[in-house]
């Protein structure tokens, strides 16, 4: 964890006081709804379908047990006893009262948390790889660079009223687990020939209604220029980004309109003024931030734990869990573990206050009191001794957090959808549940292998449907909820030779009841056509194209899904 110093704490406290006064003025009628809206939004407060929704920042997804217990306390005291972990490493409370929010923020501030810039047209929570600091392919510890950006972006005076929201992701490892090609700015750590650290700068990616992969505008940005270069990008965007149409206001539209080459020229011209200026990072600042992070106290272990290896060989259920939910660690004898929030029957990403408290305990017992939230909406214990994995598994099972499905179809990502969100066109939670139920058989699920299934309730793509190997998008047709399905998306270079990709829509959309059946048919084609178990669903889509899948779902020898459903029901 980054530990606040006095100034960090003071700023968060001052924001609470400022927001308390803004709320007071609103409730007293001195601030109109229109004037209050941007103020509450930049503090994470939406007015939703049933009640306000408060989005709490979990900067770069890193959380301490103490903070998680405070979130549980907030859920009990001011909400309905649960929270929703989002795809952007935030936590959302769905039922707070507007007038209670200042008190909630004051409570959060006691554990160095806040809701600053979790919404609004400003730089949002910086996201990163959930295995930062422990991955074997690490180049830099991305948490440090994320914290530098958190501070730089917090209350940035020039960039607080951008044309639109602005999302930055940092990836510190060789493999891209932060979806850097799908952010307004993606920063991917690289080393040059001399071993110096720098960043590849990717601009203009994003999902939403105009999904597009980002463009590399600089292959190697030496680290001292990290902030000044980003400042140049933001300045070009702030000056020239469109403000006349909310749907054309993201930086990706500007990059596309100018062309990436012209955009780059504009940035470089601006940067020429800022380069080597006062915002140039210093080694001492990077070290200062590094030192303010707590560091896990690792034991020196000889290597893989013998007892763990033996259990893997003798206990099939344990091995199935370990095979999916336990990840390699840079320290010998350690592992990172995913606690799954994707149990069938529970909305993806939801956790009860009781589960939060229990996970806080687990983190303390097994992982040095810290945990991470992944963009796949799971919780990660990053520093677990292999020797304790078996005990952790038992505990996680008892809490319903040991579903062995990481990377598999039922680990699906979903936004809260029409049950909660006022932007949604369609519900997501019942669809997610129906799919999870259809694929509940573990053997079958494991046979299908790695598959990212992502589900969004509207074009805003909070469920990242564009980059799901299978993506599902809720659409509105004359007031009815329909679901459009795409295949072949990929969130980023998660393995060699598989770059970020946007899914292709397979055809007309489906009624909700048909969705699980359609997924099943897509899977059938995959299972028939894969050349080995190593070839994943998405690899087959890329190899053979969308047509064979389309054919199976819509036509040819097979009936249309609706009619098939009906004939089954009749039978």
């Amino acid at each position, binding site marked *: 964890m980054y530990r606040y110093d006095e100034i960090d704490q003071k700023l968060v406290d001052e924001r609470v006081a400022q927001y308390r006064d803004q709320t007071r003025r609103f409730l007293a009628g001195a601030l109109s709804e229109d*004037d209050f809206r941007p103020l509450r939004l930049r503090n994470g407060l939406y007015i939703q379908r049933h009640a306000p929704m408060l989005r709490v920042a979990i900067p770069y997804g890193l959380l301490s047990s103490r903070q998680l217990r405070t979130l549980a306390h907030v859920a009990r005291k001011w909400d309905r006893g649960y929270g929703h972990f989002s795809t952007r490493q935030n936590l959302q409370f769905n039922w707070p009262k507007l007038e209670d929010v200042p008190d909630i923020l004051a409570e959060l501030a006691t554990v160095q948390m806040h809701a600053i810039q979790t919404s609004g047209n400003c730089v949002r929570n910086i996201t990163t790889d959930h295995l930062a600091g422990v991955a074997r392919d690490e180049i830099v510890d991305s948490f440090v660079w994320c914290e530098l950006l958190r501070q730089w972006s917090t209350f940035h*005076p020039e*960039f607080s009223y951008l044309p639109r929201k602005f999302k930055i992701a940092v990836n510190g490892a060789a493999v891209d687990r932060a979806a850097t090609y799908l952010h307004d700015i993606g920063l991917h750590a690289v080393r040059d020939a001399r071993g110096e650290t720098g960043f590849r700068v990717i601009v203009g990616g994003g999902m939403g209604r105009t999904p597009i992969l980002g463009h590399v505008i600089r292959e190697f940005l030496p680290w001292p220029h990290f902030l000044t270069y980003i400042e140049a990008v933001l300045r070009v965007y702030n000056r020239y980004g469109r403000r006349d149409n909310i749907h054309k206001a993201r930086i990706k539209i500007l990059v596309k309109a100018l062309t990436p080459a012209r955009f780059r020229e504009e940035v470089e011209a601006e940067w020429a003024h800022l380069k080597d200026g006062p915002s140039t990072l210093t080694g001492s600042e990077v070290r*200062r931030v590094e030192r303010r992070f707590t560091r896990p106290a690792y034991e020196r272990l000889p290597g893989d734990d013998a007892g763990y290896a033996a259990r893997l060989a003798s206990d099939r259920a344990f091995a199935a869990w370990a095979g999916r939910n336990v990840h390699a660690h840079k320290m010998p004898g350690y592992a990172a573990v995913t606690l799954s929030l994707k149990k069938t029957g529970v909305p993806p990403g939801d956790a009860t206050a009781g589960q939060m408290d229990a996970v806080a305990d687990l983190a303390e017992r097994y992982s040095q009191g810290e945990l991470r939230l992944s963009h796949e909406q799971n919780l990660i214990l990053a520093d677990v001794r292999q020797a304790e994995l078996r005990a952790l598994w038992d505990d996680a099972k008892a809490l319903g957090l040991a579903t062995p499905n990481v990377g598999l179809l039922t680990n699906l990502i979903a936004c809260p959808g029409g049950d909660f969100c006022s932007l949604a066109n369609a519900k997501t939670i019942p669809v997610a549940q129906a799919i999870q139920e259809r694929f509940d058989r573990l053997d079958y699920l494991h046979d299908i292998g790695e598959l990212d299934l992502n589900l969004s309730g509207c074009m805003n793509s909070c469920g990242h449907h564009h980059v799901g190997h299978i993506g599902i998008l809720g659409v509105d047709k004359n007031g009815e909820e329909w679901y459009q399905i795409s295949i072949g998306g990929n969130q980023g270079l998660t393995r060699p030779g598989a770059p970020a990709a946007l899914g292709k829509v397979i055809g007309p959309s489906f009624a909700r009841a048909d969705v699980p059946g359609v997924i099943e048919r897509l899977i059938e084609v995959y299972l028939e056509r894969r050349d080995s178990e190593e070839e994943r669903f998405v690899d087959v889509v890329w190899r053979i194209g969308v047509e064979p899948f389309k054919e199976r779902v819509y036509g040819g020898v097979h009936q249309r899904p609706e009619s098939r459903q009906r004939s089954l029901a009749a039978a």
Partner: protein
Amino acid sequence: MAAFIRDRKVVSDPWLRLERNDDGSLPPVPRAGDIIVPLAMWQAQRDSLLVRPGRIGVWLDSHEAPEAIAEDLRLLGVVAVNFPKSGDGRGYTTARLLRERYGWKGELRAIGDVLRDQLFFLSSCGFNAFVLRAGEDPREALAAFGELSEAYQASVERPEPLFRRR
């Protein structure tokens, strides 16, 4: 003369601001007195404006670039930047460029949809004068300047980022 905020005090405003007519044409220029004119008027009538009695200021709309007046700054008594909507943040960059790149040292005023809750950021970016949206109380708004005591970033008010001062 309307009340406005300059250098964190509520003072009366000696300047008269001219706006384009509804049809886009330029209004007549008063014979004397200090006036702030739209950029288009400055560009069209620069020579005659400079010889009339009274000081001249120019106001830029949110889409107008500071580069348009960068060469003329020494001739001006005030520069104003318009915020047609409080959420239109281009003026923040305009202000920084005028101060940091083009060296404007004089009065820089924010006009238009300027609200109390933007004063902190506006002032960080180099504005030192503020004409609030009609109906806003400038006296009450003064409290906003002190709501945050520090800032992480380099800005006009704090040329060094916090990490160089920490």
